[in-house]
């Protein structure tokens, strides 16, 4: 009943092409934006803003990037974390060596560097497909991480290999509290998510999906294979690079190679699968799930410890996490391959009638 579309007619194609054609969706979306931009920073607890909501958005952005490449364009990649690392390290270096650029241009340039790396490691996709390509992206993951650690230039020859990210200052205004970093992250992520949505519903998105579904047919009807695949890698890596820069500057506060390991690449792939392959909303849902779930597990184990008096070790929790994540992946692939995004759609459809049975 809540979600009845009756009476909402679209009389122009423009209306039909909107991101949110249904009025209830639009209202909910704007309410969410107001909540995120205005309410949360004012009311939100520092810990939640800095340690949960900010990383959630950053990972959502990286998930978006991977979703563009794997979900929409069908090119399986296991090198996501490496692109984030490039973004993080290059952002640090731009701010360090060209401070007159400013933070936002530095982030953008860092993203472009990640895009360049993405194009180089995307070249094999013109010859190789499927999981051959996935293994090839592992080459990217391992090589990039090695290079960033091996060549001291990236860390400005720091002896520990870890550097502190600089303070963020835009037009003289310092972003030094969790709330301010949260808002900066939110703004960047919101804008890039909008851009992604626009891209995916335009010709670029269709070209990506065509390459994913049947690339031979796509090239026969005129879609350029090389340009499309490389563009997918470039855009995806750009998103991951910016996410990496945000990760270093707005979340960790340091730029360290260990943070961008193969494990992170898998985690982001899990976010894509659980959230929904080929869905912008799904990227956010998947990231939320994987970011919040460990916290949830910690809480539950804390309660159980209190209740039973038995100490539950960190090792146990992290193993349980592995098992449950892996299990969920398999579960989602079997039961709902289109992930949480599809479940959300089904829920909305049920809301059309609820509380009436039929």
């Amino acid at each position: 009943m809540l979600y009845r579309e009756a009476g909402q007619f679209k009389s122009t194609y423009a209306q039909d092409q909107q991101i949110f054609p249904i009025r209830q969706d639009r209202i909910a979306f704007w309410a969410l934006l107001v909540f995120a931009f205005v309410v949360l920073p004012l009311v939100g607890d520092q810990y939640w803003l800095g340690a949960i909501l900010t990383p959630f958005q950053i990972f959502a952005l990286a998930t978006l990037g991977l979703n563009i490449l794997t979900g929409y364009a069908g090119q399986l990649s296991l090198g996501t974390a490496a692109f984030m690392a490039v973004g993080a390290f290059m952002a640090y270096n731009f701010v360090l060596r060209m401070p007159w650029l400013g933070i936002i241009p530095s982030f953008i340039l860092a993203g472009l560097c990640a895009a360049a790396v993405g194009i180089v490691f995307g070249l094999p996709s013109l010859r190789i497909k499927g999981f051959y390509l996935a293994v090839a992206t592992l080459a990217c993951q391992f090589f990039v991480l090695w290079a960033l650690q091996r060549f001291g230039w990236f860390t400005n020859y720091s002896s520990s290999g870890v550097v502190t990210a600089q303070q963020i200052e835009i037009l003289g205004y310092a972003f030094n509290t969790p709330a301010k970093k949260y808002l900066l992250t939110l703004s960047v992520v919101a804008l890039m998510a909008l851009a992604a949505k626009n891209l995916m519903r335009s010709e670029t998105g269709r070209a990506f999906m065509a390459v994913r579904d049947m690339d031979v047919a796509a090239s026969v009807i005129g879609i350029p294979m090389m340009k499309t695949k490389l563009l997918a890698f470039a855009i995806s890596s750009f998103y991951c690079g910016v996410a990496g820069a945000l990760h270093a500057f707005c979340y960790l506060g340091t730029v360290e190679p260990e943070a961008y390991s193969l494990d992170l690449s898998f985690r982001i792939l899990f976010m894509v699968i659980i959230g929904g392959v080929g869905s912008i909303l799904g990227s956010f849902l998947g990231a939320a799930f994987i970011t919040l779930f460990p916290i949830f597990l910690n809480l539950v184990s804390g309660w159980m410890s209190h209740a039973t008096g038995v100490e539950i070790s960190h090792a146990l929790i992290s193993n349980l996490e592995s098992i449950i994540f892996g299990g969920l992946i398999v579960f989602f692939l079997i039961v709902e391959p289109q992930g949480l995004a599809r479940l959300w759609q089904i829920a909305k459809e049920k809301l059309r009638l609820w509380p009436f049975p039929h």
Partner: protein
Amino acid sequence: MSSRQVGGVMLAVENVSLTFGGVKALQEVSFDVRENEVRAIIGPNGAGKSSMLNVINGVYHPQQGKIRFQGREFRDMDSHQTAEMGVARTFQNIALFKGMTVLDNLMTGRNLKMRCNFLQQALWIGPAKREELEHRRAVEEVIDFLEIQHIRKTPVGKLPYGLQKRVELGRALAAEPKLLLLDEPMAGMNLEEKQDMCRFVLEVNDHYGTTIVLIEHDMGVVMDISDRVVVLDYGRKIADGSPEEVRGNQTVIDAYLGVAH
């Protein structure tokens, strides 16, 4: 039969030979296709009909022979090039993008006409938005023509076979082609679906003046809608002429009946 005036030669295939490993798919085949006509290619299974379309389309490259299209001569075609020159086609085993909706599939047919780059699309500003809507309008005309309005937002993978074939025709039409290559467009259809498809094909030829080359097994359809027919057997052309001429040709009858030669 089309009521349009058939024009000059639009496409000419000269002495084309195509070999795969040891298999001679086509042997010195020559024929032409005139503007505005409906040309059928028929022949027993394995005669090389699909291979012929693939050569015209640039998917296969012949070892020998030439192709003349719109006055220009080509040693072989490149599929991107042919698409740009206004050739569109459908495939024997339906090459639709199963993960996309009908509307999106048809829109991909217009990809060569889209000019905006990805940055403009990301920002969804003026030119990108206008272009998208303009092409949407063009595609909706095709949707109206093919009577598939009710399924425009359905993912193609969920559609029944007959409708998928129609959507594939729609994608080819969306490209506003000069030459339309149809590979067994009526295969697997029941009588009603075939009649609909025939009607669409004839109307495309009539209304838009599109030249059509089609591969077809149903003799009734071939007799009804084509202007001229080419018959292939074991990669060679064995007859070329009007439907009546071909129907009476003894070599053709022998080929279909499997008489040894």
